[in-house]
C-alpha cells in the first residue's frame, strides 16, 4: 500500500505497525500467533502476498526469529512480532542477530507475566528489552510508542535505525497502545540516507569477497574486539539518536517520568496538577535504548524531585536513577501488571500531590 495523500485514517495500534512496515519497504514477515499482537500477522498475511512479499506463520517463535535472521542476512527488510512468552523464546535468535550485527525489527506488544501471565497491558518487560534479553552482553535499539501515530512513526524509525546501526531494533508497546484505535496520519517513508549493505550474503559472484554472517569468534582477541566495536556503536547511538518528549519541565519542581501507555495517563495527571497550580512536568523517554541520560541529567540540575511511574514494580527507575544528578530524589509509583491494575489519572494525581507536598 503506497500512500499518496496524508489523509487521516482511523486504525488500531497493531495495524498501524503493520501498515508502517509495508510503507517502509518490509516485505518479509515471520510470526506466530499470540495475544495481544495477532492483528499484526493477520494484517500482513492479507497484504504482503499482493505486494510480492513473504508471510510465514512459523512453527514457533524460535522458527520465526531465525527466519528473520536468514532474511535479514540477505539484505531485505524483515520483521517479526510477539508478546512476552514469545519474546522470551526469541531471545536466542535476538542474541545471534546482535552477535552477527544483523538488522531486523522485532515488535513486542507486552502482556502481563511472568509465565503465561495475562493478556493485559504491562511494562514489566522493560529490563528484558533494554538490557539484552538473551545471553552474551549486548543491547538492541528499543523504541516506546505512546500513541497509534507513534506506533506508525516509530516502526518506520525502527527499520531505519536498525539498518544504519546494524543492530536489531524493537518496538516496545503494550496492549493499550496495540489494541487502541486512534486517528493516524500515514506519513510517507522518511528520506533517510541508508548505508549500502555491502555485508549481505547474496552468492559470492566473481570478484566479490566471501561474505559471512556469523557470531562465532574464537581467535585471540577477536571476541573482545567485537565487544569494543559494539560499545563504540552504542555510544554513537546515545550521542545521535536519543528521543524524548518533555511537557512543561522548564519551571517544574516535580518531574513525572513514564514511558509508553503509562505516560498517557501520567500526562493527564500532570495537566490536573497544573490546573491545581502545582509546578509539575513530564519527561517521557521515546528511545529506551539509547536511554536519554543526558536529558535527565540536565533536567535534574534544576529540578530535584522526580516521580517515576510504571506499570510494573519498577524497572525503568534504575536507568532514571543512574541518569539524574546525585542529589535528586526519585520517587516511585507503580503497580504490577494484570487485569484491573492500570492506574487512573486521579490515582496518579494523588501520587503527584503527595510527593509535591513533601518536596524539600
Amino acid at each position, binding site marked *: 500500500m503506497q500512500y499518496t495523500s496524508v489523509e487521516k485514517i482511523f486504525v488500531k495500534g497493531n495495524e498501524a505497525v503493520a501498515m508502517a512496515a509495508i510503507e517502509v519497504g518490509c516485505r*518479509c514477515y515471520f510470526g506466530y500467533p499470540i495475544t495481544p499482537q495477532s492483528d499484526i500477522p493477520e494484517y500482513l498475511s492479507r497484504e504482503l502476498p499482493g505486494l510480492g512479499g513473504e508471510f510465514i506463520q512459523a512453527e514457533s517463535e524460535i522458527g520465526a526469529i531465525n527466519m528473520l535472521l536468514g532474511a535479514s542476512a540477505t539484505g531485505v527488510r524483515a520483521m517479526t512480532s510477539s508478546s512476552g512468552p514469545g519474546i522470551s523464546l526469541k531471545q536466542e535468535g535476538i542474541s545471534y542477530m546482535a552477535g552477527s550485527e544483523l538488522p531486523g525489527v522485532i515488535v513486542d506488544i507486552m502482556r502481563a507475566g511472568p509465565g503465561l501471565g495475562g493478556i493485559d497491558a504491562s511494562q514489566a518487560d522493560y529490563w528484558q528489552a533494554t538490557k539484552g534479553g538473551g545471553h552474551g552482553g549486548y543491547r538492541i535499539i528499543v523504541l516506546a510508542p505512546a500513541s497509534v501515530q507513534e506506533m506508525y512513526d516509530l516502526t518506520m524509525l525502527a527499520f531505519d535505525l536498525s539498518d544504519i546501526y546494524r543492530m536489531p531494533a524493537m518496538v516496545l508497546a503494550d496492549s493499550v497502545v496495540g489494541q487502541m484505535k486512534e486517528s493516524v496520519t500515514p506519513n510517507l517513508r522518511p528520506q533517510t540516507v541508508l548505508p549500502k549493505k555491502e555485508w549481505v550474503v547474496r552468492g559470492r559472484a566473481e570478484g566479490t569477497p566471501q561474505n559471512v554472517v556469523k557470531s562465532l569468534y574464537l581467535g585471540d582477541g577477536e571476541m573482545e574486539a567485537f565487544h569494543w566495536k559494539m560499545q563504540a556503536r552504542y555510544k554513537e547511538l546515545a550521542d545521535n539518536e536519543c528521543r524524548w518528549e518533555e511537557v512543561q519541565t522548564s519551571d517544574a519542581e516535580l518531574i513525572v517520568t513514564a514511558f509508553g501507555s503509562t505516560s498517557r495517563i501520567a500526562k493527564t495527571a500532570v495537566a490536573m496538577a497544573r490546573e491545581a497550580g502545582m509546578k509539575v512536568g513530564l519527561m517521557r523517554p521515546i528511545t529506551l535504548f539509547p536511554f536519554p541520560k543526558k536529558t535527565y541529567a540536565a533536567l535534574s540540575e534544576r529540578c530535584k524531585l522526580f516521580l517515576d511511574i510504571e506499570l510494573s514494580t519498577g524497572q525503568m527507575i534504575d536507568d532514571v536513577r543512574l541518569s539524574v544528578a546525585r542529589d535528586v530524589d526519585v520517587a516511585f509509583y507503580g503497580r504490577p501488571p494484570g487485569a484491573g491494575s492500570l492506574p487512573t489519572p486521579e490515582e496518579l494525581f494523588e501520587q503527584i500531590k503527595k510527593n509535591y507536598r513533601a518536596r524539600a
Partner: protein
Amino acid sequence: MKQVFTRPESLKDVATHFCPGCHHGSVHRLVAEALDEFGIRSQTIGVASVGCSVFLYGYFDVDVIEAPHGRAPAVATGAKRARPDRVVFTYQGDGDLAAIGMSEIIHAANRGEDITVIFVNNTTYGMTGGQMAPTTLPGQKTSTSPYGRDVSKDGSPFKMAELLSNLDGVAFSARVALNSPKNVLNAKKMIKTAFRYQVEKKGFSFIEALASCPTNWGMNPLDANQRVTDEMIPYFPLGVYKNTANL
C-alpha cells in the same frame, strides 16, 4: 599432461580442522563438486549449523550464514524466501538436526521449502566431546551413555531419511555413506540429485550421510570406517526413500 583430479572451485585451498578419518571432508568435497558441476557457486548461500560443521565458511568459497543450534532450516527458509533466485543449503549434524532442531527441520520440510539439507549422521555429538545423540545406536557407549544407549529410557535412534520421506512437502530423500569408493560414488550421485531438485525448483531435498567419527568413537580411522559397514548401515539402510520427480 592432462589433469584428471583437482580441488573443486567451490572449496578453498586450506587444510580442514577435521580429525583423521572423519567423513566431513568427503561430504564437503561432494557438495562442492555438485555446486561446481551445476555452475551455481556464485549463486549459493550456505547455512552453517552448530557443531563440527560450523566452520563451513572456512572451507566453502560461498557466502554463508551461521545459524543458531538446530535453526539452520528456519534461517535457510528466511534466506530462500527473501532471495528465491539463490541456491540455499544447510549442512547439519545429528544433534543439531534431530535433537534441538527437530521442529525446524520437520516444518521446513513440511512446507516444502525449496532448499537442500545435508545431514551428517555420525551417531554422536562431535564438537562437544562424543555425547549421546538422537541417532546413537542402541547399546552404543558415549560420554553421556557410559552403560550404552538404553532404548527403554533414551528411545530409539531417529531414522531421519525415512521420517522426512513421509511428509508431503519432501520431494527427495536419500541416505548415503562414505565408507567405500562405491558408496562415495553413489553419495556423489545422490548429492548432485538433491541439488538438481533445487536448481530445477522441484522442492525440498534431503541427504542423510552416514559418517564416521573416529575420535569420539575411540577408534582408529580404519576401524571407524568398518563400523559404518558393520553397525550403522544395518540400522540405517542406504537408499532413496523419496524421489518424486524421478531425477
